[in-house]
Protein backbone atom coordinates (compact mmCIF):
# COMPACT_ATOMS: atom_id res chain seq x y z
CA UNK A 1 0.00 0.00 0.00
CA UNK A 2 1.44 3.35 -0.97
CA UNK A 3 2.40 5.69 1.84
CA UNK A 4 0.24 8.78 2.03
CA UNK A 5 2.43 11.83 1.51
CA UNK A 6 1.44 13.34 4.84
CA UNK A 7 4.23 15.27 6.52
CA UNK A 8 3.32 17.50 9.38
CA UNK A 9 6.79 18.82 9.99
CA UNK A 10 9.66 19.59 7.71
CA UNK A 11 12.73 18.81 9.79
CA UNK A 12 15.15 19.98 7.12
CA UNK A 13 13.98 23.55 7.58
CA UNK A 14 12.59 23.63 11.06
CA UNK A 15 11.34 20.58 12.91
CA UNK A 16 8.31 22.44 14.20
CA UNK A 17 7.33 24.20 11.03
CA UNK A 18 4.10 22.93 9.56
CA UNK A 19 4.42 22.43 5.84
CA UNK A 20 1.73 22.45 3.24
CA UNK A 21 1.26 19.13 1.59
CA UNK A 22 -0.98 19.14 -1.44
CA UNK A 23 -2.47 15.73 -0.68
CA UNK A 24 -3.16 16.70 2.89
CA UNK A 25 -4.73 19.95 1.81
CA UNK A 26 -6.97 18.01 -0.51
CA UNK A 27 -7.97 15.69 2.31
CA UNK A 28 -8.47 18.64 4.64
CA UNK A 29 -10.71 20.31 2.09
CA UNK A 30 -12.63 17.10 1.73
CA UNK A 31 -13.26 16.93 5.46
CA UNK A 32 -13.32 20.65 6.16
CA UNK A 33 -16.86 20.28 7.50
CA UNK A 34 -16.75 17.57 10.14
CA UNK A 35 -19.80 15.37 10.01
CA UNK A 36 -22.42 15.73 12.71
CA UNK A 37 -22.56 12.00 13.39
CA UNK A 38 -18.76 11.74 13.63
CA UNK A 39 -18.73 14.51 16.21
CA UNK A 40 -21.68 13.00 18.07
CA UNK A 41 -19.95 9.61 18.12
CA UNK A 42 -16.69 11.10 19.38
CA UNK A 43 -18.42 13.08 22.12
CA UNK A 44 -20.53 10.12 23.26
CA UNK A 45 -17.52 7.79 23.22
CA UNK A 46 -15.59 10.31 25.32
CA UNK A 47 -18.36 10.58 27.93
CA UNK A 48 -18.81 6.80 28.17
CA UNK A 49 -15.07 6.09 28.29
CA UNK A 50 -14.57 8.76 30.93
CA UNK A 51 -17.37 7.38 33.10
CA UNK A 52 -16.21 3.79 32.62
CA UNK A 53 -12.74 4.72 33.86
CA UNK A 54 -13.88 7.00 36.69
CA UNK A 55 -16.92 4.95 37.74
CA UNK A 56 -18.09 8.14 39.38
CA UNK A 57 -21.68 8.69 38.36
CA UNK A 58 -23.26 5.27 37.85
CA UNK A 59 -21.85 3.58 40.97
CA UNK A 60 -22.75 6.55 43.17
CA UNK A 61 -26.26 6.67 41.77
CA UNK A 62 -26.82 2.94 42.22
CA UNK A 63 -25.86 3.22 45.89
CA UNK A 64 -28.00 6.34 46.27
CA UNK A 65 -31.02 4.67 44.65
CA UNK A 66 -30.70 1.60 46.84
CA UNK A 67 -30.61 3.80 49.92
CA UNK A 68 -33.74 5.64 48.82
CA UNK A 69 -35.53 2.31 48.27
CA UNK A 70 -34.37 1.15 51.67
CA UNK A 71 -35.81 4.28 53.27
CA UNK A 72 -39.14 3.69 51.52
CA UNK A 73 -39.13 0.06 52.60
CA UNK A 74 -38.72 1.04 56.23
CA UNK A 75 -40.83 4.20 56.11
CA UNK A 76 -43.98 2.64 54.68
CA UNK A 77 -45.50 -0.47 56.12
CA UNK A 78 -47.29 -1.26 52.89
CA UNK A 79 -49.57 -4.24 52.63
CA UNK A 80 -49.51 -6.33 49.50
CA UNK A 81 -52.81 -4.90 48.29
CA UNK A 82 -51.54 -1.32 48.54
CA UNK A 83 -48.28 -1.89 46.74
CA UNK A 84 -49.45 -1.66 43.10
CA UNK A 85 -50.81 1.83 43.77
CA UNK A 86 -47.77 3.02 45.72
CA UNK A 87 -45.06 1.41 43.60
CA UNK A 88 -45.08 3.92 40.69
CA UNK A 89 -44.58 6.82 43.07
CA UNK A 90 -41.81 5.07 44.97
CA UNK A 91 -40.00 4.19 41.75
CA UNK A 92 -40.23 7.62 40.15
CA UNK A 93 -39.17 9.48 43.29
CA UNK A 94 -36.09 7.25 43.30
CA UNK A 95 -35.48 7.66 39.55
CA UNK A 96 -35.87 11.44 39.68
CA UNK A 97 -33.62 12.00 42.68
CA UNK A 98 -30.92 9.88 41.05
CA UNK A 99 -31.57 11.50 37.67
CA UNK A 100 -31.02 15.00 39.02
CA UNK A 101 -27.67 13.95 40.45
CA UNK A 102 -26.68 12.39 37.13
CA UNK A 103 -27.71 15.46 35.16
CA UNK A 104 -25.84 17.79 37.52
CA UNK A 105 -22.63 15.93 36.72
CA UNK A 106 -23.19 16.00 32.95
CA UNK A 107 -21.73 19.48 32.58
CA UNK A 108 -20.37 20.15 36.05
CA UNK A 109 -17.85 17.34 35.57
CA UNK A 110 -16.54 19.00 32.41
CA UNK A 111 -16.34 22.36 34.19
CA UNK A 112 -14.60 20.91 37.24
CA UNK A 113 -12.03 19.08 35.13
CA UNK A 114 -11.47 22.14 32.95
CA UNK A 115 -12.41 20.38 29.73
CA UNK A 116 -15.58 22.27 28.84
CA UNK A 117 -13.88 25.18 27.11
CA UNK A 118 -11.80 22.73 25.10
CA UNK A 119 -15.05 21.43 23.60
CA UNK A 120 -16.36 24.92 22.97
CA UNK A 121 -13.14 25.86 21.18
CA UNK A 122 -13.59 23.10 18.63
CA UNK A 123 -15.86 23.73 15.65
CA UNK A 124 -18.36 21.25 17.04
CA UNK A 125 -22.01 21.49 16.19
CA UNK A 126 -23.56 22.50 19.51
CA UNK A 127 -26.45 20.16 18.76
CA UNK A 128 -23.98 17.27 18.78
CA UNK A 129 -22.79 18.29 22.23
CA UNK A 130 -26.38 18.40 23.46
CA UNK A 131 -27.30 15.01 22.00
CA UNK A 132 -24.11 13.37 23.28
CA UNK A 133 -24.73 14.66 26.79
CA UNK A 134 -28.39 13.62 26.58
CA UNK A 135 -27.55 10.11 25.37
CA UNK A 136 -24.82 9.64 27.98
CA UNK A 137 -27.12 10.82 30.79
CA UNK A 138 -29.93 8.64 29.45
CA UNK A 139 -27.70 5.56 29.38
CA UNK A 140 -26.42 6.23 32.91
CA UNK A 141 -29.94 6.77 34.23
CA UNK A 142 -31.31 3.66 32.50
CA UNK A 143 -28.48 1.55 33.90
CA UNK A 144 -29.21 2.82 37.40
CA UNK A 145 -32.94 2.30 36.90
CA UNK A 146 -32.40 -1.31 35.79
CA UNK A 147 -30.54 -2.07 39.01
CA UNK A 148 -33.12 -0.13 41.02
CA UNK A 149 -35.98 -2.14 39.51
CA UNK A 150 -34.25 -5.41 40.27
CA UNK A 151 -33.74 -4.40 43.89
CA UNK A 152 -37.26 -2.98 44.07
CA UNK A 153 -38.64 -6.36 43.06
CA UNK A 154 -36.63 -8.01 45.81
CA UNK A 155 -37.55 -5.46 48.50
CA UNK A 156 -41.26 -5.11 47.81
CA UNK A 157 -42.15 -8.47 46.29
CA UNK A 158 -44.73 -7.01 43.93
CA UNK A 159 -45.26 -8.44 40.42
CA UNK A 160 -45.07 -6.09 37.42
CA UNK A 161 -45.29 -6.34 33.66
CA UNK A 162 -41.67 -5.95 32.58
CA UNK A 163 -42.20 -4.97 28.89
CA UNK A 164 -44.81 -2.33 29.78
CA UNK A 165 -42.68 -0.98 32.58
CA UNK A 166 -39.64 -0.85 30.30
CA UNK A 167 -41.53 1.23 27.73
CA UNK A 168 -42.83 3.68 30.34
CA UNK A 169 -39.47 4.00 32.10
CA UNK A 170 -37.69 4.58 28.79
CA UNK A 171 -40.20 7.25 27.70
CA UNK A 172 -40.27 8.96 31.10
CA UNK A 173 -36.52 8.92 31.54
CA UNK A 174 -36.01 10.28 28.03
CA UNK A 175 -38.35 13.18 28.75
CA UNK A 176 -36.73 13.94 32.07
CA UNK A 177 -33.22 13.72 30.61
CA UNK A 178 -34.18 15.79 27.56
CA UNK A 179 -35.22 18.83 29.51
CA UNK A 180 -32.78 18.10 32.32
CA UNK A 181 -29.77 18.17 30.00
CA UNK A 182 -30.74 21.63 28.80
CA UNK A 183 -31.18 23.00 32.31
CA UNK A 184 -28.02 21.27 33.49
CA UNK A 185 -26.10 23.24 30.87
CA UNK A 186 -27.73 26.45 32.10
CA UNK A 187 -27.08 25.76 35.76
CA UNK A 188 -23.51 24.53 35.31
CA UNK A 189 -22.24 28.12 35.33
CA UNK A 190 -23.92 28.96 38.61
CA UNK A 191 -22.27 28.58 41.97
CA UNK A 192 -25.18 26.70 43.60
CA UNK A 193 -25.83 24.46 40.60
CA UNK A 194 -26.91 21.47 42.72
CA UNK A 195 -29.77 23.60 44.07
CA UNK A 196 -30.38 25.61 40.94
CA UNK A 197 -30.92 22.60 38.65
CA UNK A 198 -33.87 21.00 40.49
CA UNK A 199 -35.44 24.43 41.10
CA UNK A 200 -35.33 25.06 37.35
CA UNK A 201 -36.09 21.54 36.23
CA UNK A 202 -38.96 20.27 38.37
CA UNK A 203 -41.59 22.88 37.39
CA UNK A 204 -40.96 22.22 33.70
CA UNK A 205 -40.71 18.45 34.13
CA UNK A 206 -43.97 18.17 36.11
CA UNK A 207 -45.97 16.87 33.10
CA UNK A 208 -43.49 14.10 32.35
CA UNK A 209 -43.15 13.15 36.02
CA UNK A 210 -46.91 12.96 36.60
CA UNK A 211 -47.45 11.24 33.26
CA UNK A 212 -44.75 8.68 33.99
CA UNK A 213 -46.12 7.88 37.44
CA UNK A 214 -49.63 7.44 36.07
CA UNK A 215 -48.46 5.37 33.10
CA UNK A 216 -46.29 3.20 35.34
CA UNK A 217 -49.44 2.12 37.16
CA UNK A 218 -50.28 0.21 33.96
CA UNK A 219 -47.34 -2.11 34.53
CA UNK A 220 -48.49 -2.85 38.09
CA UNK A 221 -52.06 -3.53 37.05
CA UNK A 222 -53.28 -0.68 39.23
CA UNK A 223 -55.11 1.03 36.39
CA UNK A 224 -56.15 0.60 32.78
CA UNK A 225 -56.19 4.36 32.19
CA UNK A 226 -52.45 4.73 31.76
CA UNK A 227 -52.23 4.93 27.98
CA UNK A 228 -53.27 8.59 27.64
CA UNK A 229 -50.61 9.42 30.20
CA UNK A 230 -48.05 7.48 28.22
CA UNK A 231 -49.12 9.46 25.16
CA UNK A 232 -48.57 12.67 27.10
CA UNK A 233 -45.06 11.55 28.05
CA UNK A 234 -44.19 10.65 24.45
CA UNK A 235 -45.52 14.01 23.23
CA UNK A 236 -43.47 15.77 25.93
CA UNK A 237 -40.39 13.85 24.77
CA UNK A 238 -40.86 14.92 21.15
CA UNK A 239 -41.61 18.57 21.89
CA UNK A 240 -38.84 19.13 24.42
CA UNK A 241 -36.29 17.21 22.39
CA UNK A 242 -36.91 19.52 19.45
CA UNK A 243 -36.99 22.67 21.58
CA UNK A 244 -33.92 21.75 23.64
CA UNK A 245 -31.92 20.82 20.54
CA UNK A 246 -32.85 24.13 18.93
CA UNK A 247 -32.03 26.40 21.88
CA UNK A 248 -28.97 24.61 23.26
CA UNK A 249 -26.51 26.63 21.20
CA UNK A 250 -28.02 29.86 22.47
CA UNK A 251 -27.86 28.59 26.06
CA UNK A 252 -24.17 27.78 26.00
CA UNK A 253 -22.99 30.62 23.76
CA UNK A 254 -24.77 33.30 25.76
Amino acid sequence: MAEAPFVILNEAKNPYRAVTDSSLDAQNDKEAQPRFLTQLGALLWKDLATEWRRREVVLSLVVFSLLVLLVFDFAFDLRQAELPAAAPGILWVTFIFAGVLSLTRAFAGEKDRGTWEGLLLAPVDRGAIYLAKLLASLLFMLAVEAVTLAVFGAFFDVPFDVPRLAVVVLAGTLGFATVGTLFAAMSANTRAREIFLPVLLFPVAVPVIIGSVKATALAFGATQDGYPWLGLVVAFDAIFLAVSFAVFEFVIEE
Partner: protein
Amino acid sequence: MISARGLTKTFGRVPALRALDLDVTAGETVALLGGNGAGKTTLLRILATLDKPTAGQVRIAGLDALRQPQQLRAQLGLVAHQTYLHPELTVSEELRFYGRLYGLAALDRRIAALLDQFGLAARAPLRVATLSRGQQQRVAIARALLHQPAVLLLDEPDTGLDAEGLAVLERVLRAGDRTVVFSSHNRAWATSVAGRVLSLAGGRLEA
Protein backbone atom coordinates in the same frame (compact mmCIF):
# COMPACT_ATOMS: atom_id res chain seq x y z
CA MET B 1 -4.79 38.40 9.94
CA ILE B 2 -6.05 39.72 13.31
CA SER B 3 -7.76 43.06 13.60
CA ALA B 4 -9.40 44.27 16.82
CA ARG B 5 -11.03 47.66 17.10
CA GLY B 6 -12.23 49.39 20.27
CA LEU B 7 -12.13 46.16 22.20
CA THR B 8 -13.69 46.71 25.61
CA LYS B 9 -14.50 44.13 28.24
CA THR B 10 -15.87 44.77 31.70
CA PHE B 11 -16.62 42.29 34.45
CA GLY B 12 -19.34 43.98 36.46
CA ARG B 13 -17.87 47.44 36.97
CA VAL B 14 -14.29 46.29 36.61
CA PRO B 15 -12.79 47.04 33.20
CA ALA B 16 -10.45 44.36 31.85
CA LEU B 17 -9.92 45.86 28.38
CA ARG B 18 -10.41 49.54 27.46
CA ALA B 19 -11.01 50.37 23.81
CA LEU B 20 -8.03 48.30 22.71
CA ASP B 21 -6.92 48.26 19.07
CA LEU B 22 -4.74 45.41 17.82
CA ASP B 23 -3.40 44.48 14.39
CA VAL B 24 -1.38 41.36 13.72
CA THR B 25 -0.27 40.49 10.21
CA ALA B 26 -0.21 36.97 8.78
CA GLY B 27 2.79 34.95 9.89
CA GLU B 28 3.69 37.37 12.65
CA THR B 29 4.56 36.23 16.19
CA VAL B 30 3.44 38.74 18.79
CA ALA B 31 4.12 38.59 22.52
CA LEU B 32 1.80 40.20 25.05
CA LEU B 33 3.50 41.31 28.22
CA GLY B 34 1.98 42.80 31.33
CA GLY B 35 1.43 42.25 35.01
CA ASN B 36 -1.42 40.38 36.63
CA GLY B 37 -4.76 41.91 35.67
CA ALA B 38 -3.31 43.72 32.66
CA GLY B 39 -5.88 42.07 30.38
CA LYS B 40 -3.71 39.51 28.55
CA THR B 41 -5.90 36.50 29.27
CA THR B 42 -9.09 38.43 28.59
CA LEU B 43 -7.76 39.56 25.22
CA LEU B 44 -6.69 36.03 24.26
CA ARG B 45 -10.03 34.56 25.35
CA ILE B 46 -11.91 37.08 23.20
CA LEU B 47 -9.67 36.33 20.23
CA ALA B 48 -10.30 32.61 20.82
CA THR B 49 -14.12 33.21 20.79
CA LEU B 50 -14.44 31.96 24.37
CA ASP B 51 -15.59 35.37 25.62
CA LYS B 52 -17.50 38.15 23.95
CA PRO B 53 -16.35 41.74 24.29
CA THR B 54 -18.60 44.30 25.94
CA ALA B 55 -17.89 46.52 22.95
CA GLY B 56 -15.69 46.47 19.88
CA GLN B 57 -15.05 44.35 16.83
CA VAL B 58 -12.69 41.46 16.10
CA ARG B 59 -11.86 40.04 12.69
CA ILE B 60 -9.55 37.06 12.33
CA ALA B 61 -8.62 35.42 9.04
CA GLY B 62 -11.31 37.48 7.36
CA LEU B 63 -14.02 36.24 9.72
CA ASP B 64 -16.03 38.23 12.24
CA ALA B 65 -15.29 36.63 15.62
CA LEU B 66 -18.67 37.68 17.00
CA ARG B 67 -20.86 36.72 14.06
CA GLN B 68 -18.93 33.76 12.63
CA PRO B 69 -17.38 32.10 15.67
CA GLN B 70 -18.05 28.56 14.48
CA GLN B 71 -16.26 29.04 11.14
CA LEU B 72 -13.44 30.85 12.89
CA ARG B 73 -12.84 28.09 15.44
CA ALA B 74 -11.58 25.76 12.72
CA GLN B 75 -8.83 28.32 12.07
CA LEU B 76 -7.80 28.79 15.70
CA GLY B 77 -5.63 26.88 18.12
CA LEU B 78 -5.51 27.85 21.78
CA VAL B 79 -3.17 26.85 24.57
CA ALA B 80 -4.73 28.26 27.71
CA HIS B 81 -3.90 28.27 31.41
CA GLN B 82 -5.89 25.07 31.73
CA THR B 83 -4.77 22.26 29.47
CA TYR B 84 -8.35 21.24 28.53
CA LEU B 85 -7.17 17.62 28.61
CA HIS B 86 -9.31 14.75 29.86
CA PRO B 87 -7.40 13.06 32.71
CA GLU B 88 -9.03 9.69 32.05
CA LEU B 89 -8.06 9.47 28.38
CA THR B 90 -4.68 8.38 27.10
CA VAL B 91 -2.54 10.86 25.20
CA SER B 92 -3.32 9.26 21.84
CA GLU B 93 -7.04 8.99 22.68
CA GLU B 94 -7.09 12.66 23.59
CA LEU B 95 -5.59 13.70 20.26
CA ARG B 96 -7.80 11.29 18.35
CA PHE B 97 -10.90 12.64 20.12
CA TYR B 98 -10.11 16.21 19.10
CA GLY B 99 -9.11 15.09 15.63
CA ARG B 100 -12.56 13.58 15.14
CA LEU B 101 -14.23 16.75 16.41
CA TYR B 102 -12.28 18.72 13.80
CA GLY B 103 -13.00 16.13 11.12
CA LEU B 104 -9.33 15.67 10.29
CA ALA B 105 -8.05 13.34 7.64
CA ALA B 106 -4.93 11.17 7.97
CA LEU B 107 -5.43 11.29 11.71
CA ASP B 108 -3.18 8.39 12.67
CA ARG B 109 -0.21 9.79 10.79
CA ARG B 110 -0.93 13.29 12.01
CA ILE B 111 -1.01 12.15 15.65
CA ALA B 112 2.08 9.98 15.28
CA ALA B 113 4.03 12.87 13.78
CA LEU B 114 3.04 15.26 16.52
CA LEU B 115 3.76 12.78 19.31
CA ASP B 116 7.16 12.14 17.80
CA GLN B 117 8.02 15.79 17.39
CA PHE B 118 6.89 16.66 20.91
CA GLY B 119 8.79 13.79 22.50
CA LEU B 120 5.55 12.12 23.58
CA ALA B 121 5.63 8.92 21.53
CA ALA B 122 6.44 6.79 24.57
CA ARG B 123 3.67 8.48 26.53
CA ALA B 124 0.98 7.84 23.90
CA PRO B 125 -0.68 4.90 25.73
CA LEU B 126 -0.53 6.60 29.14
CA ARG B 127 -3.45 8.39 30.67
CA VAL B 128 -3.16 12.14 30.80
CA ALA B 129 -3.63 12.08 34.58
CA THR B 130 -0.35 10.19 34.97
CA LEU B 131 1.70 12.83 33.14
CA SER B 132 3.59 15.65 34.79
CA ARG B 133 2.37 19.23 34.36
CA GLY B 134 5.06 19.89 31.77
CA GLN B 135 4.18 16.78 29.78
CA GLN B 136 0.51 17.73 29.89
CA GLN B 137 1.45 21.16 28.59
CA ARG B 138 3.23 19.52 25.65
CA VAL B 139 0.12 17.47 24.89
CA ALA B 140 -1.96 20.65 25.10
CA ILE B 141 0.32 22.36 22.58
CA ALA B 142 0.24 19.31 20.31
CA ARG B 143 -3.57 19.29 20.51
CA ALA B 144 -3.69 22.98 19.60
CA LEU B 145 -1.55 22.27 16.51
CA LEU B 146 -3.38 19.08 15.49
CA HIS B 147 -5.62 20.79 12.94
CA GLN B 148 -2.82 23.07 11.70
CA PRO B 149 -4.57 26.31 12.66
CA ALA B 150 -3.84 29.52 10.82
CA VAL B 151 -3.79 31.39 14.12
CA LEU B 152 -2.24 30.08 17.31
CA LEU B 153 -3.06 31.74 20.63
CA LEU B 154 -1.11 30.83 23.75
CA ASP B 155 -1.64 32.08 27.29
CA GLU B 156 1.61 31.81 29.24
CA PRO B 157 2.56 28.64 27.36
CA ASP B 158 5.93 28.33 29.10
CA THR B 159 4.17 27.44 32.37
CA GLY B 160 5.47 24.15 33.77
CA LEU B 161 7.72 23.33 30.83
CA ASP B 162 11.19 21.94 31.41
CA ALA B 163 14.17 22.96 29.25
CA GLU B 164 13.36 20.39 26.58
CA GLY B 165 9.70 21.37 26.51
CA LEU B 166 10.63 25.03 26.33
CA ALA B 167 12.87 24.31 23.36
CA VAL B 168 9.98 22.57 21.62
CA LEU B 169 7.73 25.54 22.34
CA GLU B 170 10.31 28.01 21.06
CA ARG B 171 10.57 26.16 17.76
CA VAL B 172 6.78 26.26 17.43
CA LEU B 173 6.74 29.99 18.10
CA ARG B 174 9.63 30.70 15.73
CA ALA B 175 8.34 28.54 12.89
CA GLY B 176 6.83 31.55 11.16
CA ASP B 177 4.27 29.46 9.30
CA ARG B 178 1.24 30.80 11.15
CA THR B 179 0.12 33.84 13.05
CA VAL B 180 0.93 33.54 16.74
CA VAL B 181 -0.11 35.67 19.70
CA PHE B 182 1.13 34.60 23.10
CA SER B 183 1.28 36.08 26.58
CA SER B 184 4.07 35.75 29.08
CA HIS B 185 5.40 37.22 32.30
CA ASN B 186 8.95 36.46 31.18
CA ARG B 187 10.01 39.56 29.20
CA ALA B 188 13.47 38.28 28.28
CA TRP B 189 12.18 34.97 26.97
CA ALA B 190 9.20 36.52 25.16
CA THR B 191 11.41 39.12 23.49
CA SER B 192 13.78 36.41 22.29
CA VAL B 193 11.07 34.41 20.49
CA ALA B 194 8.58 37.05 19.35
CA GLY B 195 8.85 39.24 16.29
CA ARG B 196 7.00 42.01 18.11
CA VAL B 197 6.36 42.65 21.78
CA LEU B 198 3.33 44.53 23.07
CA SER B 199 2.84 45.68 26.66
CA LEU B 200 -0.58 45.68 28.26
CA ALA B 201 -1.41 47.67 31.35
CA GLY B 202 -4.84 48.37 32.78
CA GLY B 203 -6.54 46.92 29.73
CA ARG B 204 -4.72 49.16 27.27
CA LEU B 205 -1.75 48.66 25.00
CA GLU B 206 1.17 50.80 26.06
CA ALA B 207 3.11 52.72 23.43
